[in-house]
Structures are given as C-alpha cells and as structure tokens.
C-alpha cells in the first residue's frame, strides 16, 4: 500500500489512486451496478448523439425548429407517440448542450468567439438566409442573433461528436463485462481511461450543407480535439457545474445554500442529491426515465432484490449513475495526471500530489462520501 503525505481531508481518496483504485470502492455489486448503468447510458447516448447531430446538420438556422426531435421524419403516429411521451427525452441532451454553451471552457469557446469563426459563419448565414428578406432584415437589425444560433449549433454538434465516442465506449464496456473481461472497478476505470485516451486526439470538425454546398463551421484548421476541447469542458460543465439531474434538488438562496461567488456554485452530476426533495410535482429526471428502458436484466434483478424493489427505480438509477460518473471522473483525473504516478522524481511527485489535492478540493462538498456505502 502506498500512502501519500497529503493532509487533505480527502487524502484517503488520493491514496486510493496511488494504489490503483478509484473513487468508488471495488466490489462485485459496484461493478455490476456501474457497468449495467453505463451500458443503458450507452444506448441512451446513442439516441441523444444522433438527435444532436441531426439538429446541428438539418435544423441549422431554422428559427422555429418545431420538429427537431423527429430524426426519422414526421408522421401522425410519431407525433401522437411524442405527445403521449412515448419517446426518448431529447430535451435532456439539449440541457447538457446548453450547460456546455453557458459554461464554455477549452479552445472551443475561444474559437467560437474569434473573428475567424465570425468570418466563416457569415458565409453560411448568408447562404442560408438568401431569398428570405425577413430574416435578412432580422440579421441586419440584430447582427448577434444568428451567430449566437450558430454557436449553439456548434455545441449541438460537438456534444454529439463527444457522445458518439462515449456511447460506443459504454456499449463495449457492457460487452466486455458480459464476456467476463471486466470484473473490477479499476478495470472499469482503466477501460474508460483507455477509450478516452484513444479518442483524445480526434479532430472536432463541423460543416453544414446549404444549397448543395458545404460550409465549414469548425474547420480542421481550428485544431480542436476531442479530449481537451470537448470532453474536459463537458466534464466541467455537466459533472461539476451544470443541471444534469433536473428536479432532484432545490436550492434556497435565502437560506444561504447558494454560494456568493457564482464560480463556487456546484450542481453537477457529482454533487446532485439523487433523492427528490419535497412533495408531489417534482419531475423525475429525464435521463433516468430514458435509461430505465435499457437496463440489463442483471441490474433489474439487483434492484428488485432491494426492500422497495423497483418502486423507486429512478432514484436507484440515479444513484448507480452517480457512481458510474465517479468512475468516469476517476478515469479523467488519472488520464490528465501530469506525471506517471509511479515516478521517483520528487518534483514530479510533488506536482502530482498538488494536482490531486487541487481536484480533491472540488470534491469536498460532493456526494463522494455518500457513494462509499
């Protein structure tokens, strides 16, 4: 066993990383829970990414995208199903996209605010609004409106690309578990880390087709990559800052539950309380509603063996999902570590320790302790 010299309140978790473990304790139930939930998440992400990319490509600068959730065309039958809520909650994917857009981060944010980007998208905008005097007038009167819509499309596309990698990774993880290749939490973390590292350098590019011609929005020359420009901002926005578990917790500003500094406000997947608060009227989380359709049988059995069986299925999914997100975060932290953890160089050791302590500061108010049981 390796013990660091850290005096951080969460030093025990730093020691875990040094000993090849992760945030989540390694036991068969946790493995089953995490792999099962990530597999169902994989199916949901596949649908989400397809829709996000559909919106980015087909609904580009559509001012009223009424049918944006209908990837495969609109029919009366599909419309009825949609209204009856017999569908995937694509809204959740949009919430995540908007959280990324609002929080920004990485080179992607820098690029969409750059003059190069404005110059490039103006060509696409002009092509799109050609022959539409009302929108042309709108563009003249409010020159920031359409570029902001394009920025949003960029994030639709970027998140779609990120999840395109992640859904395949999670489905493969499920297959590997089914084949007996994955048996421990460190193996789960290792599998995710390997997937992230393998895709780290993937180029993020985006172009739209208007009038049979292709218009670059995120060109190759922007040199945006998967890990640093999309994955890391996504983790920051959704895991640490965003609003992923809609309706599971409410903050009371008058009770001082919201930090004075906005940057200190945490509401992400790693902080959210899986237990809904209050009485009726709180909507169950959209993501949990979607994932319940794809739970593997072994996870159903595991949930059914509990005292309340599947009466609180959404809470159980939420808890399992939170555990799995700690595994993904563990993989990301390990993947981004400045030096090899087994280094003998004192300076590198100190640098690694500072890196981990910096991360642990952010987990002080998280659900980290609650997922240990």
């Amino acid at each position, binding site marked *: 066993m390796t013990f660091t010299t850290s005096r951080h309140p969460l030093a025990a978790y730093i020691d875990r990383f040094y000993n090849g473990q992760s945030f989540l304790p390694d036991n068969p139930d946790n493995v089953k829970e995490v792999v099962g939930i990530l597999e169902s998440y994989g199916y949901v992400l596949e649908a989400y990414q397809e829709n996000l990319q559909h919106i980015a490509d087909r609904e580009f600068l559509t001012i009223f995208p009424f049918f944006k959730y209908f990837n495969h065309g609109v029919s009366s039958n599909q419309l009825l199903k949609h209204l009856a809520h017999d569908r995937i909650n694509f809204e959740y994917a949009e919430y995540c996209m908007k959280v990324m857009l609002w929080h920004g981060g990485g080179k992607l944010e820098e690029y969409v605010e750059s003059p190069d980007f404005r110059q490039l998208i103006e060509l696409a905008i002009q092509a799109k609004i050609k022959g539409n005097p009302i929108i042309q007038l709108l563009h003249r009167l409010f020159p920031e409106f359409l570029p902001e819509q394009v920025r949003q499309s960029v994030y639709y596309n970027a998140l779609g690309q990120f999840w395109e990698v992640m859904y395949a990774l999670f489905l493969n993880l499920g297959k590997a578990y089914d084949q007996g290749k994955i048996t421990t939490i460190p193996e789960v973390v290792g599998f995710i880390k390997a997937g992230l590292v393998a895709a780290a350098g993937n180029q993020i590019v985006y172009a739209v087709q208007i009038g049979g011609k292709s218009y670059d929005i995120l060109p190759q020359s922007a040199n945006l990559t998967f890990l640093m420009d999309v994955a890391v901002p996504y983790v920051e926005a959704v895991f640490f800052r965003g609003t992923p578990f809609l309706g599971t917790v409410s903050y009371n500003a008058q009770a001082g539950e919201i930090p004075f500094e906005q940057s200190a406000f945490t509401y992400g997947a790693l902080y959210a309380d899986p*237990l809904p*608060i*209050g*009485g*009726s009227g709180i909507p169950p989380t959209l993501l949990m509603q979607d994932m319940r359709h794809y739970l593997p049988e072994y996870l159903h059995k595991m949930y059914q063996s*509990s005292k309340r069986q599947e009466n609180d299925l959404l809470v159980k999914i939420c808890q399992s999902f939170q555990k799995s997100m700690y595994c993904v975060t563990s993989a990301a932290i390990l993947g981004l570590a400045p030096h090899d953890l087994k280094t003998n160089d004192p300076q590198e050791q100190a640098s690694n320790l500072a890196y981990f302590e910096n991360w642990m500061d952010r987990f002080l108010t998280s659900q980290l302790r609650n997922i240990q049981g």
Partner: protein
Amino acid sequence: MLSILLVVPLIGAALVAWWPGKTRSIASTVALAVIGWTVLLLTKFNLGEPGMQFVEDFTWIDSLGLSYKLGIDGLSLPLVALNSLLTWVAIYSSDEKVDRPRLYYSLILLLNAAVTGVFLAQDLLLFFISYELELVPLYLLIAIWGGQKRAYAATKFLIYTALSGALILAAFLGLAWLGGSNSFTYNPALAHALPLNQQFLLLGALLLGFGIKMPLFPFHTWLPDAHVEASTPISVLLAGVLLKLATYGILRFCVGLFPDAWQVAAPWLAGWAIISVLYGALMAIAQKDMKKMVAYSSVSHMGYILLAAAANTPLSFSAAMIQMVSHGLISAALFLSVGVVYQKAGTRDITILEGLLNPERGMPVIGSLMILGVMASAGIPGMVGFVAEFLIFRSTFPIFPIPTLLCMIGTGLTAVYYLLLINKAFFGRLSPQVQDLEAVTWRERYPAMILTGAIILFGFVPGWITRWSEPTILAMLQPPAIVATVATIPTLDLQP
C-alpha cells in the same frame, strides 16, 4: 330490528372464535353485514320523528328492575353508523398475520356489539352493562396486541374506565333510589322531580364518570398511554368510537336527565372545556411521538363537545353531534396514517422522521392523507372539521363569549402542532434512518382514503349528519321557551 345490530356481531364473534380458518374473512363479512343493516336502518328511520324509534322492550330481570329496552333516535343513530363503519375499517386495517386471529377478531366484534348496546340502551342499567362490557374486549385488545408497555397501559385504562363506570352506576342507582323508582328505564321526569342539590350530586357523579372516559383534564392521562400502546386498528376504535360513549352519555344523561342542574353548572363546564381544550393542545405541541400528539389532540377536541353541550341550545347540540362524527372520522384517519408510518419506518418520533412525502422513497399518498387529516382537524374549510368547529363556536359564542374565544385559540394551536408534525416528518429530505422504507401498498392506503373521502364529503354536505339529530335535539331541549329563544339565533341551513 335493533337487536340484529347486537346479535349479528355477537354471533359473528362466536363464529370467528370457533369456525376453523378464514377468520379474517368471516369478521370482515360480519362487519359488512352490520354496515348493511345500519344502512337499512337509515333508510327506515323517520326523520320527522323526534322520539325513540324501533323500540324493543322486554323485562329482563324483574327483581333488579332491569329491562331489555332498546331504541334509536337522532342522537344515537349517527354514532351507531360511525361504530359500524369504523369496526369494518379496524378489521380491514388489521395486520393479516396478527397473532391469535380468532381471539383478536372476535374481541373486535364483541366490542362492536357492546358499543352499539351503549348507544341503543334505553334502560340505565342496560346502558351500564354495555358500558362495562366494552371494557373487557378493549382491555384485552390493548393488553395482548399492544406495544412494549401494553400491560401498564391496559391496566391504567381498565382502572380509569372502571372507576368511570362505578361513578355512572352510582349515579343511576342514586337516581332510582332518590326518585323512588323500581325500574331503571330512561325517564327524564324522574330526575326533574328531584331537588336541585340532589340533582347536582347525581350530575356530578355522571360528569366525573363521563369526564374520565371522554377524557377531560385532569382525568385524561390514561388516553395517551392507551393510544401509544394500542395497535393501529384499536386506536381507530378507541378514538373514533369509544370516546364518543362519554360525549353521548353527557348529552343523553347529564343534559337529558338533569337539565336544571346542567343549566346552573354550564358556566363552570365551559371553564372546564377551556382548560381541557388548551391543555390538550399545549401538550400536543410538546409531543415528539406522532400518535401521542393525535391522542392529546383528542383531549383538546373533546373539550369542544363539552363547550357545545354546556351552551345547551339546539344549534350547539347539533354542533356537538357533528363534532362527534367529525372527530371520529378525522382521528381514525390520522391514526391509520400514523399506523402506516410506524409500520414502515419503525418509529413515530418526529425528531427522527423527515421527508416522508418523498415521491420516490417516502410515502406520498399516506403523507397527503395525513395532511388532509390535519387540515380537517385544524378546521380548514371544505372539510367536516371546519363545519363542526364553526358550528360550535357560532352556537356557543352568544352564550359563552369569552370561553368560546379562548377555545378558538385551541383551534389555532391545533394548526400549530399539526403543522409542526407535518413540517418535521413529511417535508424536507428523507432522513438517513428512513431512506430504505418498504413501499406502501394500496391495501394499506384504502382505509384512510375512505375516511378522508367521508371527511371531505361531509365538509360539503354536513346536513347529511345533522338531519338525523335535529328533531331529537329540538324535542330534547324542551321546554319550548328555550327553543323559541334559540330560534332567534340565525342558523345555517344544514340540509344538503
């Protein structure tokens, strides 16, 4: 016709005790049969007739002056119906795996027969026998199926209520002796002929007896203990019906037999009502155990009935009647909800319970029913509790303005302690101790749902309760002068 209401549960009790298997089904069927017979009685009941109906009169033991005389009027009919309903609710909400089911269900049916006997008896001695008979099954139901301190609670209940019975018997014997009567037939003229000091003596004994049973401060201490230790169905019967034996006794015997003495004692009784209302409410605020809180709430709410009885007007008597039914339904619904909470969470301590309204892991339906119950108890409009309390205050204010105002503080305090309960136990985040609760089944919800439905229904059509008793009350509060005085007080049209 009335004897059927006694015979059916008695035969049912014997069947349950001796018939092999299907104990619960038999008990439930018998209780439903009693409800059916009560409904038939309601349809046959002559609303315009103020006196006793369906009278059955046989000499039983001539040498004792005891006769088997039954009758029903507007005062007893709503309470008989309440007893029938709550007996079925108690059987339905009993644990399916209850120990010694034959004894348990037969005792509940026996209790039903005894309570019905109290409401129907038109012979003072028969009333007393039924009143005492009810003690035996209830004592056993608490002593055998109660909580950890059941022996203590059951014994305390027995001692207090036996003393109550002794005082009532003493009053009845005194009435027959002083009145020079050989029989114990209910006869207001007999008491009216007595000098006022003798009337006071007898009324005092009756008041003490019924005051213990109601219970009123300072004779209430048996009730919280009995409730805390009794199982949920028994608490339903205890609060819903058993306490009404005393309030019924006060209206029927204290006011009915000794109207002159009652008139003189009324201001003092109003004072007693204030103390009981406020003491019960303040004690409820101090409780941490949900069941004890509901029990002290009963002490407080029984005080309103005494206030209404003290006012001694037709409207106040109607108000007292509606409060009896109202309290029976509300307290039963509250005890049922508390029972489910206790069964699932293993505690009733509001310092431990929190967030039970949680839609995923709590008990939102039971929580909602509990909220409706406490709203009704606190007198929120649209529920029968509001009608009862409003009528009480409306009718007592012209007679006792200060006591009425002081009792109205009790209503405010009801909202205080129940909101404390709801806020602590049901709102907020589920406390860690109760995050792994078993789900509540619909079967467990139905009894409280049925009662809550009745609470709301009677809140909108209170006339469905008062219509039965109005002619009886008007006739009871003769001489006509009183009726004429009261007629000048504007009354609500209680007809639906």
